[in-house]
């Protein structure tokens, strides 16, 4: 009995020691999400000169005004850039893990982040959970751009 209990705890200790190594390998293999510029290009938009420093600007076919894309990290990085981009005229879209909303819905963003984190912990989701909320400022002259699949800038995957 004593030996069996000791054997069980040795096995558990080895399991706990080996698990982070396996997890690191799986995360590295999963890779990171498509960079924002590449994701914007994948939507068929061409790069343009940004109006707000630190943001991405892109032109869509048939639209004379640029779409502005900015990202803010949960740690505050890019917060001021997003604030400056929000001052631009046009329709806004906040994108996070497949969610596309006209307002920064903190509860919905937090719920998606929590769900993705839980799945990640349980090993049901590969790769890190993104910590950046993407803002898209659509030019007022081209309302049709709202129909584009903006969720691709921060997909659930």
């Amino acid at each position, binding site marked *: *009995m*004593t030996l069996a*209990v*000791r054997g*069980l*705890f040795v096995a*558990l*200790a080895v*399991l*706990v*020691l080996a*698990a*982070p*190594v*396996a*997890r*690191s390998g799986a*995360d590295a293999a999963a890779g990171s999400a498509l960079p924002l510029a590449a994701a914007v290009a994948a939507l068929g938009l061409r790069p343009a000169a940004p109006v707000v420093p630190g943001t991405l600007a892109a032109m869509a076919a048939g639209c004379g005004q640029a779409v502005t894309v900015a990202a803010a*990290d*949960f*740690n*505050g*990085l890019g*917060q*001021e850039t997003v*604030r400056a981009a929000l001052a631009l005229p046009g329709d806004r879209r906040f994108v996070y893990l497949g969610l596309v909303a006209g307002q920064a819905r903190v509860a919905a963003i937090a719920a998606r982040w929590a769900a993705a*984190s839980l799945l*990640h*912990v*349980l*090993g049901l989701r590969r790769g*890190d959970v993104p*910590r950046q909320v993407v803002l898209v400022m659509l030019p007022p002259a081209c309302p049709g751009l709202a129909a584009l699949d903006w969720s691709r800038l921060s997909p659930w995957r």
Partner: protein
Amino acid sequence: MTRTRTTVAGGVSLAELRVWMLLVAGFAYWGNVVRTARSDGAAGLGYVLDGVLQNGAFAAASWALIVAWAAGAGPARRASAGQIAAAAALCLLGAMPSRQTAILVLIGLGVQLARPAGTRTGRKVAVLLFALAFDSAWTSPYLLALHAAVATLDARAVQGLLHAAGVGAGRYGNLIAGATPGFGIEILARCASSYPFGGVCLAFVVTLLYQGRFPRRRDLPWLVASLAASVVLTEVRLSWMALGDADYLWLHEGSGVTLYTLAAVACAVLFPLLAARGGGRAGGSRVGAGA
């Protein structure tokens, strides 16, 4: 140090069970630290050492004390089947490699050790485990938004300090700019004055326990003073960094980092030492090394 019996006839003792659990909790904690360092981009064998070093001297000191006290952390009586099953379940939770589960294991084990039926040494180890869990939770991604909000307040404080020193600077949210033309700093969550609070609390507990004193409610003003000193130190550092590119590089990547670290460690150790001295004079209870 006293020797403690860890085995009993015909079964495993609670003392041995606690040693196994502490071993697994240590593996879960440090495994998570190393994994996080690796995912932050460190590569090669050096990442293991980097991860351990970046986690802080007080976390290492905590685990050194836990190792020293592990044998006395549980009573010498025989562990029941239920206690063994509960311990195994907690250890199995630690096999899930994440910060959340490592925190849960530390808290779960701490709760078991803190029970009145446990040993005095067990309660000291429990306090260390709670402090480690608090530090892990406080610096976790879950609280980044909170620290980012504090960073905006820090930017306000930095602007005030710079103005008081006769340096004009503009503030835009968490951005401080204009102390030098064309230069500005963005204060992020990990630079916020609230971010080191977990480490300061851990340092306070470790130093007190190392001094042979169990933390008490009377120590609270000293802990608050320690946290306040940490805030002041951070604001001074941020203000200094906002002065210009050369100052920023020196304090962020140069030898200024060592100076700041030494000052932070000195502050973190000073207040618990003062608390321990004050408690000694008042004839407060001191904890022995034995179980």
